[in-house]
C-alpha cells in the first residue's frame, strides 16, 4: 500500500528528531493529508495555545495517493493553528515537494516547540538533520532555494521555505515550495517563522507501492482519460478564465467589495494573458503541471522588460509563476488595478517573499478605502498615494510588506487588525480574520455560507456551491449543497489529490482509485462519512480554541449593502436564512456545536 507508515516528529526546542510509526487506525478514519493532519493536531496540542508560540504544532502531511501515478498526486497539506484567525489553519500545495517527502520515507512531519536559533530541516535519504539557517535567515524564497541546493551539492532537493514575511510575522505568510507553488493561505508560513524554522529540504530516492498495482494502473488510466475530457479549458486558460464569468455575473469584488463588476477586467483576464501586444510581448509563456498532474493549469509568465516595475531591475527579467484567478482578483479588481504587468510582478513578489496574495490584496484594498476616506494619509503610507487603481502603489506596498518596511508593517497585520487599528473594523472584508477570495457573496449566496462557516475563515476552496449559486441568486436550497460539498472537499483534500479533478470525478471515481491504492475497503460512502468526520473535528478544534457561533458571519457590507449591479443587483447575502438550516443539517445545536448524537454518529465522542 502507498503509505510509508512513518512520520517524523521534530522537536525544535530540544532538537530531537524521532521517526514514529504512522497511526494506521487514524489514517483509516481520516484518509490522510488534511484529515489525518487534523487528527494529529487535535491529539498533539491545546487548541487554546498561542498560534505564534512554541506550543503550537505545525504539520506537513501527504495523502495516500500522494506520489503515485494518479493524476494530480503531488499534493501535501500544512495544518496548524492559524495566526490570522486563531482557528485551525489548513493550506495545501502542489509542486513536487509533497511527493518527494513520501519518496524520502515519510508520510507526515510533525513539528513542535521552537528553535532558539534559525534552522532548516534536511532530509536527504537516511540522513536527517537540523542545520543552522544563519546564512539564509533574511533571504528570499528564491535565494534560499538556490543556497540550500548549492550548499548540499544536490540540485534534486525539493525545498519548502518561508521568505522574510514569515520570519518577521506577516500574519498571512505562506510556505512556498518549488519556487512558486504555495501552501498560501491562513498564515502557515507565519507559524513556521515563529518556530525559527526557515525551510525543509527533501530528497527522496525510495519508492511508493500501491495495494493492487494492476487494478491501480487500470483505474488511474481510465480516470486520466475521463479527466482530460472536461479540463481542456483549465489547461488552455488556467483558473483566470473565471474573471470573465464573474464580471458578467456581477460577482467580481471590486474596490474592496464596494462594487461587484470591474471595467478593466479584460486587461488582466486569461485572454489578456494570451494576447501579444504591439511590442511582440505575450504575458503567458507556457502552462505548467504540478507533480503527476495531467491538467497543467499552472501559468508561467513574464513581465515586459520596459515596464516600470522592472525596467531597472534585471533580476526580474525571467519567467516565473503567472496569474491565477485569485492572484488576478487580489491584484486587480479588488484594488482597482488593470495593469497586467504590475499584477504579474506583484505575484512574483508574493512568491519571492512568501505571502498569501489573497490576504495581501484584500488588506491593501481596505487600506485604499481608508485612504480615500481620509482616515489615513500619505503621512501614514510612506508618501505613497493609496488610491484604488494605483498600480505603482500595489507593487510598492507588496514589496514593503514582504520586507516588513514602513507601511508594509501595518499591511502585514491583515485586514481585520489593520481596520481595527484605524477604528473601522466594518471595512475589513474577512471572516474570522481571514480575507475573502474573489467571489462576492451577494451574487453567490452559497459561497457566502461557505465563507461564513469556513473552518479556516473565509475561503473558496473548502466547499463548492458554484453551480447552484449561478442558477439562483437567493439563499434557498444552498445549505444542503454547502454542507455536502464541504464534507466532500474535505475527503478530496485528504486523499492527496487536487480539487480541480472534482468536476470530472465524483465519490465513486475517487473511491475506486483509493481502494486500489491502499488498505481500507474504500467506498464512496466511506469517503463521504470520513469527510464529514474531518469537517466536524476541525469545528471541534475551533470551538475548543474559543470560537463561537458569532464567528460564523459576514461583514455588514455583504449583509446590508445591496449589490450595486449585475445579476444580483439589489440583493444582500441571506445568511440569516441559510445558517440555521445549515446547523440543522449538520446536526449542530443553535450554538453551532455538534450534538452528542452527531459526535457519536461520526465516532468523535
Amino acid at each position, binding site marked *: 500500500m502507498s503509505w510509508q507508515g512513518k512520520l517524523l516528529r521534530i522537536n525544535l526546542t530540544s532538537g530531537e528528531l524521532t521517526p514514529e510509526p504512522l497511526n494506521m487506525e487514524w489514517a483509516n478514519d481520516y484518509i490522510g493529508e488534511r484529515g489525518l493532519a487534523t487528527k494529529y493536531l487535535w491529539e498533539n496540542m491545546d487548541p487554546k495555545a498561542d498560534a505564534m508560540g512554541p506550543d503550537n504544532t505545525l504539520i506537513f502531511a501527504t495523502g495516500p495517493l500522494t*506520489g*503515485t*501515478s494518479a493524476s494530480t498526486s503531488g499534493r501535501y497539506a500544512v495544518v496548524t493553528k492559524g495566526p490570522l484567525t486563531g482557528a485551525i489553519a489548513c493550506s495545501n500545495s502542489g509542486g*513536487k515537494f509533497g*511527493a518527494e517527502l513520501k*519518496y524520502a520515507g515519510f508520510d507526515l512531519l510533525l513539528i513542535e516547540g521552537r528553535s532558539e536559533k534559525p534552522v532548516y530541516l534536511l532530509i536527504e535519504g537516511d540522513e536527517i538533520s537540523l542545520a543552522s539557517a544563519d546564512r539564509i535567515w533574511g533571504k528570499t524564497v528564491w535565494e534560499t532555494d538556490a543556497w540550500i541546493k548549492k550548499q548540499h551539492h544536490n540540485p*534534486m532537493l525539493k525545498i519548502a521555505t518561508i521568505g522574510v514575511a514569515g520570519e518577521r510575522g506577516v500574519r498571512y505568510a505562506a510556505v512556498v515550495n518549488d*519556487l*512558486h507553488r504555495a501552501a498560501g493561505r491562513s498564515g502557515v508560513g507565519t507559524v513556521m517563522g515563529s518556530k525559527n524554522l526557515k525551510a525543509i529540504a527533501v530528497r*527522496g*530516492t*525510495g*519508492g*511508493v*507501492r*500501491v495495494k493492487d*498495482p494492476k487494478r491501480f*494502473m487500470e483505474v488511474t488510466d481510465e480516470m*486520466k482519460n475521463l479527466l*482530460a475530457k472536461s479540463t481542456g479549458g483549465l489547461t488552455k486558460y488556467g483558473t483566470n478564465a473565471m474573471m470573465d464569468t464573474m464580471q458578467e455575473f456581477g460577482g467580481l469584488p471590486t474596490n474592496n467589495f464596494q462594487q461587484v463588476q470591474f471595467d478593466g477586467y479584460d486587461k488582466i483576464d486569461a485572454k489578456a494573458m494570451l494576447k501579444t501586444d504591439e511590442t511582440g510581448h505575450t504575458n503567458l*509563456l*507556457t*502552462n*505548467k*503541471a*504540478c*507533480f*503527476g*498532474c*495531467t491538467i*497543467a493549469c*499552472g501559468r*508561467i509568465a*513574464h513581465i515586459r522588460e520596459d515596464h516600470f516595475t522592472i525596467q531597472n531591475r534585471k533580476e526580474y527579467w*525571467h*519567467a*516565473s*509563476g503567472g496569474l491565477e484567478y485569485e492572484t488576478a482578483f487580489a491584484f486587480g479588481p479588488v484594488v482597482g488595478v488593470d495593469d497586467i504587468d504590475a499584477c504579474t510582478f506583484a505575484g512574483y513578489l508574493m512568491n519571492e517573499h512568501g505571502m498569501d496574495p489573497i490576504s495581501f490584496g484584500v488588506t491593501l484594498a481596505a487600506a485604499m478605502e481608508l485612504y480615500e476616506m481620509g482616515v489615513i494619509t500619505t503621512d501614514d503610507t510612506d508618501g505613497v498615494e493609496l488610491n484604488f487603481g494605483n498600480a505603482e502603489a500595489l507593487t510598492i506596498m507588496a514589496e514593503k510588506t514582504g520586507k516588513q518596511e514602513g507601511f508594509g508593517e501595518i499591511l502585514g497585520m491583515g485586514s481585520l487588525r489593520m481596520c481595527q487599528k484605524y477604528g473601522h473594523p466594518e471595512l475589513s472584508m474577512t471572516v474570522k480574520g481571514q480575507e475573502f477570495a474573489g467571489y462576492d457573496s451577494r451574487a453567490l449566496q452559497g459561497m457566502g455560507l461557505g465563507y461564513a462557516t469556513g473552518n479556516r475563515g473565509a475561503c473558496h476552496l473548502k466547499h463548492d456551491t458554484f453551480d447552484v449559486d449561478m442558477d439562483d441568486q437567493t439563499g434557498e436550497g444552498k445549505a444542503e449543497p454547502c454542507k455536502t460539498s464541504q464534507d466532500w472537499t474535505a475527503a478530496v483534500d485528504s486523499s492527496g489529490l487536487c480539487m480541480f479533478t472534482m468536476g470530472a470525478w465524483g465519490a465513486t471515481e475517487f473511491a475506486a482509485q483509493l481502494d486500489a491504492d491502499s488498505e481500507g475497503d474504500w467506498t464512496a460512502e466511506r469517503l463521504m462519512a470520513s469527510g464529514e468526520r474531518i469537517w466536524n473535528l476541525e469545528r471541534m478544534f475551533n470551538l475548543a480554541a474559543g470560537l463561537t457561533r458569532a464567528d460564523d458571519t459576514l461583514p455588514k457590507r455583504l449583509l446590508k449593502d445591496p449589490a450595486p449591479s449585475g445579476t444580483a443587483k439589489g440583493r444582500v447575502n441571506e445568511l440569516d436564512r441559510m445558517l440555521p438550516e445549515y446547523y440543522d443539517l449538520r446536526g449542530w445545536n443553535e450554538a453551532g456545536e455538534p450534538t452528542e448524537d452527531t459526535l457519536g454518529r461520526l465516532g468523535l465522542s
Partner: protein
Amino acid sequence: MHRMLHIEPSLCTGCLQCEMACSFEHEGEFNPARSRIRVFEFEHGRTSVPYTCTQCVEAWCMKACPTAAISVDMELGAKLVSPEACVGCKACVAACPFGTIEFNPASGKVDKCDFCGGDPKCASACPTDAITYVDAGALGVGRMQASAQQAAQGGA
C-alpha cells in the same frame, strides 16, 4: 524498423508521469529517482525537458563495459544491461557523454532505458505527446515540414 523516443520539450508540462511509468515498469513502484527518463526544469519552469538514452548505434557504454554486460537488442536497437553480468564498476557511467546510464546504489548495478521491450511506458503515459516512440529514420520530418511551411509563408 528501428524506432526511438522522440522528445519535444515545448509540449512537456513537467508532470513527471513518464518518470512514474518508467519506474513502475522497471521497479514495480513509483520512484522517479529510479526512472530511466528524467525531466529537467529551467527558468522557474519555463521549459521542462525530458531526457533519456538515445540508444547510440556505436554505444560508448557498451564499448566501455569490461564484462560485456551491455548488449544490443537487434530488433529494437536498444542497448540492454544484463544484471547478471554487470559488476557495478561504473565504467559505462563514466563513458556515456549524456549521463543516461546510471548507477543504482540499491542494486549495485547500472540502469538504462530498454524501450520496455518495444512499448515504452513513458511515451504511453505522456499526456501531451511530448514523448513519442517513432521511426528513427524519419525523426526530422516533422520539423522539416514545419520549417517548410514557415518558408512557404515567407518566414524563416
